[in-house]
């Protein structure tokens, strides 16, 4: 279906006619499959039907969700696709519509403040990404990206509208600079996923007639951003990336939390810092011995280390790897957020894990971990406000130990069968405030290259020590059946049924449709 031999070679043509893919794939793979000006249109659609209940069961929300994406891509705009040295230019874009028809119109009506949920939209549309990318220009020296794009590194996953230029030098390092506007919720075709947390922010258009309506809900405005990175290049066994990013908040912010004008100032205007962070990550490997990965993210505004991680792998045999993982985390937020200045103690995680591949098809991994939440054990010194409870030893409780421990373990396995698999995972987490333990067994199998079967079943138990009425043991299963229409295109329906004493019987039905048309 609409798959030309030019784009797919023998692979696509054969699969389109429904011949056994096992033979088609092997044959096609031998030939360079790609040709100049490959293009594709893809779409993923999911429909979900389920209910959400509040902890008391008093409120029930019907979710009738439809999420669909439409992607367009053009690859290899230049005519030397089979030359790995040739420059390449690619265009990729994806639009998303994420609707909840179970949502009430009143929840978005500004004239119904008793029902209005600020920021909620029944059918938001966003451009997930849309950029043109060039690589390997000037004999591999220059690359660029222009448009809405992601940046992923030790500072996290981030999105902006703008341009990025990368110069790969002949001296084993590359320099990357970028600038533009951070993707922010409340602005056209945008989501809030990629802005820093800690600020309740969104589209306040329509709130002008009553500025006192939800003053804590901040208006969105453009956020200029710049960044740079220096990265090693050309060496496999050692890779490092030093990255820096700065984002500004602009426009008006509601400062008074109660009612506009009752406190001074009611609003604050001006360009101010949203985030300024520095990160580094490194990865070094000795193939016969092991490897190490490490990194950090430092918040230059809060002047706190937000995250430090390190992982040591030891290749004890060709099939066994032992690992020691360490993770330090302290929450930091957007520069507009008051929570940056609340006392937040770091979490320290230490994990020991092993993975074993008895056969090429079978893999097993498991580990144990311990976390030390830290807490305050004595009155704070050098406080600006000495009457604060934090500074008072009298009439206050302080734990004798700063460490609030938590333990856990996990075990998982996977057996590959062609393109399918059979897997299992078990998890246990134990802490003073709650435990969770459970196991899932799952599998997926494609029969005769087109019929897809999926299944999952599991038992999970959780104990909430702060709310014992929320304890439950859940048994659930998921059954899915699908049909591959043509390459990369699938229609699938699955049904989830969970049983526990809180929810009783909980059902969730899902429909998936994935379409890929290629030229």
């Amino acid at each position, binding site marked *: 279906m609409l798959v030309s031999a030019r784009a797919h070679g023998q692979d696509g043509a054969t699969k389109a006619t429904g011949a056994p893919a096992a033979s088609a794939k092997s044959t096609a793979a031998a030939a360079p499959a790609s040709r100049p000006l490959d293009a594709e249109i893809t779409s993923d659609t999911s429909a979900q039907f389920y209910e959400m209940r509040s902890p008391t069961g008093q409120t029930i929300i019907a979710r009738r969700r439809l999420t669909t994406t439409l992607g367009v891509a053009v690859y290899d705009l230049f005519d030397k696709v089979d030359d790995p040295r040739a420059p390449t230019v690619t265009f990729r874009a994806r639009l998303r519509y994420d609707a909840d028809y179970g949502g009430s119109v009143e929840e978005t009506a500004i004239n119904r403040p008793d029902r209005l949920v600020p920021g909620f939209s029944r059918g938001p549309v966003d451009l997930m990404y849309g950029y043109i990318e060039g690589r390997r220009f000037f004999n591999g020296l220059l690359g660029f990206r222009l448009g809405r794009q992601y940046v992923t590194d030790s500072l996290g996953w981030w999105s902006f509208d703008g341009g990025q230029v990368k110069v790969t030098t002949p001296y084993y390092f590359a320099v990357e600079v970028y600038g533009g506007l951070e993707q922010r919720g409340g602005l056209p075709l945008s989501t*809030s996923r990629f802005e820093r947390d800690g600020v309740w922010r969104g589209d306040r258009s329509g709130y002008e007639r009553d500025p006192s309506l939800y003053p804590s809900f901040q208006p969105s405005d453009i956020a200029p951003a710049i960044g740079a990175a220096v990265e090693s290049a050309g060496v496999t066994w050692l890779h490092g990336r030093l990255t820096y990013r700065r984002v500004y908040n602009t426009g008006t912010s509601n400062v008074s939390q109660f009612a506009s004008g009752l406190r001074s100032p009611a609003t604050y205007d001006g360009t101010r810092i949203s985030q300024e962070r520095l990160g580094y990550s490194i990865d070094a490997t000795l193939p016969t011995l092991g490897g190490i990965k490490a990194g950090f993210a430092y918040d230059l505004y809060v002047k706190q280390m937000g995250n430090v991680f390190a992982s040591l792998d030891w290749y004890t045999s060709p099939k066994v790897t032992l690992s020691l993982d360490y993770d330090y985390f302290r929450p930091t937020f957007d520069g507009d957020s008051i929570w940056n200045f609340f006392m937040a103690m770091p979490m320290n995680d230490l994990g020991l894990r092993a993975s074993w591949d008895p056969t090429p098809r079978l893999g097993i991994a498991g580990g144990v971990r311990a976390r030390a939440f830290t807490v305050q054990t004595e009155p704070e010194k050098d406080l600006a406000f000495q009457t604060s409870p934090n500074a008072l030893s009298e009439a206050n409780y302080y734990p004798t130990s700063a460490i609030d421990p938590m333990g856990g373990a996990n075990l998982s396995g996977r057996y590959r069968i062609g393109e399918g698999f059979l897997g299992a995972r078990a998890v246990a987490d134990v802490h003073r405030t709650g435990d969770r333990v459970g196991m899932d067994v799952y599998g997926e199998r494609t*029969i005769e290259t087109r019929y897809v079967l999926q299944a999952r079943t599991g038992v999970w138990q959780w104990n909430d020590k702060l709310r014992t009425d929320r304890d439950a043991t859940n048994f659930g299963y998921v059954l899915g059946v699908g049909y591959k229409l043509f390459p990369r295109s699938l229609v699938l329906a699955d049904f989830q049924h969970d049983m526990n004493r809180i929810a009783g019987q909980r059902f969730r039905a899902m429909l998936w449709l994935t379409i890929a048309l290629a030229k």
Partner: protein
Amino acid sequence: MNPAAHEDETTEETRRGSLGALFVLVIALFGAIGTAFAQGEGASRQSPPVTDTQADAGSDAASTQPPVGPAHTAPATGAPFTSGLAPLPGNARVPLGWLPPGAFEQDTGPSTAVYPPQKLTIRFNHKFHVVTQKLECKSCHPGALTSQSVNDVLTPKPTLCDGCHGTDHTNLNDVQAGDDDSGQCAFCHIGYKAGDGNRVAKFHIPHSNMVFNHQKHAARNINCQQCHGDIHELELATRDQLPRMRGCFGCHQHPDSVSRGDAKSSCDTCHVKGGASEGGLLKTTFASGVLNPPRWMHNAQHAPDFIQRHKYVAANDSQFCANCHKEEYCTGCHDGRVRPRSIHPADYLNMHATEARLATQKCTSCHREQSFCLGCHQRLGVSMSGPTAAREAGRFHPPRQEWSDAPRRPGHHAFEAMRNLNACVSCHIERDCVVCHGGQGIGGGFNPHGGGFSSGCATQLKRNPRPCYVCHEPGAPVLQRCQ
């Protein structure tokens, strides 16, 4: 009877009934899965395809099902041939030094995804031909010097053997045996039986799932041994003598860089690019296996728990991931609108509060709490800041006297906030905190700052005074300490 007790019994009976039905359901479920997998297993064992060109490399295209691997056979004279059936006599282990560069001690062989399993039905002694008979590699594999594609067949045509063995393979439907033992069909063809219609087992070396140009490497004076190891020391050459990716990295190093000179190192230099059929990325799924990075490459072994550990790799070199994964693969979870069951199992809506408190997984990896979490909590009436008509009368947290009233006791929210502030941010807006933690005149004056705060607050006030003004009026004496 006590009505409550009766109700308990009824509940117990119902529970027993439910458990029985549950047991039957589980059995049926696993039976169905087992049947499906058992049925599918046969399909996955299909033989790799044989093309016309591949058949040229062997013998009779109309052969019977070939045996897999070496098998002992005997010539017409009855004396067994024992050489050339394995790399070394007695199928001894090939020393590491004779394997291709990049092979490991206790080597497990090259990837089946790149080099599909072969069916070698020819007995052949490389050492005899190279060392004793003084033949060069190119004597039998001349195409290796000029080949530009893995589609090329580089094994010798059977007519090449005729000169020495006295056979005649000109017409494969009427092959003539030679006069002496070395010219008998069974001398080379494993499993040949004289009374079997002159049939021989099919010889099959599938094309490699990669891009390779022998000519370019030969032109740079890279000899056979540099990639294939010491085949001249071996009898039968098997898949184990095919190049290892680690060996290629002697010249090609990822990520690609102009600093590497002519040996370009982008993944598609060697790996098959899928074009639009793979979203412009590498082709990773083949009939013979799935292409996954080895553990020595960025420590990126895709073990069953990789979902918990992939952050280390992605944080360091996301472009490495992007060779095989498109953005939507990542957004499926990290900007997800559909709950991934591999991360959020079972009835996660009821379980998630416990996990959020444990922070086993950092919710912020995929969710912005002041948007995703807060919005849902407000709609459900759980949050203090939600619309009044939706707000529930019930209290989520423990009793106020324990949770929020002064003085602090064990279980006070201050300790919960200190050890996992994100859990608070997922449900509360700043106003909820300012009510008590705002400075005198705005809130209750309960200072939330940590020790040493005032010594570093000047810069923060200068760069963004907005959060300061939420709790302190600009002229407040306490704020002047930061100016």
